[in-house]
């Protein structure tokens, strides 16, 4: 699968809060599989999706699994392109320091341009 012609640019767009719906968790499962196929993977976080990367998540009270440590493990799968939308962070009173991994913060326009460069965009 790693032949030059078979590598596509996959972007996973995460727009939803980590808990409340299963989208974020099941999105991560696709991300890991896509990396195993040696594809060019990047992740974008916007809208409530920025909460997925928030430090200090505690899920005991809602009896669901805290899967946020997985984001820190992405580096081990050579997934290092994480983009967060600036406007979404600001609207929620968050800064880069509130996030549990290193990310690139992009403005809405730049994010749009980056999406335009992808071969496959999956939005969850």
């Amino acid at each position, binding site marked *: 699968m790693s032949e030059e012609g078979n590598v596509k640019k996959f972007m996973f767009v995460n727009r939803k809060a980590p808990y409340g719906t299963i989208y974020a968790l099941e999105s991560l499962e696709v991300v890991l599989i896509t990396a195993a196929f040696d594809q060019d993977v990047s992740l974008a976080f916007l809208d409530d999706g920025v909460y997925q990367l928030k430090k200090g998540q505690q899920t005991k009270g809602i009896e669901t699994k805290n899967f946020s440590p997985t984001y820190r493990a992405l580096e081990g799968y050579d997934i290092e392109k994480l983009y967060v939308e600036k406007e979404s962070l600001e609207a929620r009173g968050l800064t880069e320091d509130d996030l549990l991994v290193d990310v690139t913060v992009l403005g809405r326009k730049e994010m749009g341009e980056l999406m335009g460069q992808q071969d496959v965009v*999956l939005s969850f």
Partner: protein
Amino acid sequence: MKFGIVVNEGPYQHQASDSAYLFCKAALEKGHQIFRVFFYHDGVNNASRLTEPPQDDRNIVARWSKLAEEHKIDLVVCVAAALRRGIKEENLAPGFRISGLGQLVEAGIQADRLVTFGD
């Protein structure tokens, strides 16, 4: 053109499956190819043969099965998402098969366009 289709929502609750079906039909009529339809998240519920809608409503599950039979379309249900929701071989509608997420990635690689239907 060769399309890959992703359905992320269950039948009846959400329009995603209806829209995906109508899209597939329109694409086939125009001479395009559907490489695969991949069902993920609650979309796996589209594959339950236990589904019984009222007589005067469309049968979403049977409609997919018929489309698969007539056009030899590959309908793939994600195994992890399916098991979570009680979809297994024993209650799978005709034309569907259960497989892994690799099938979704492959659809992304092989298809000219991957089109997602969901929220």
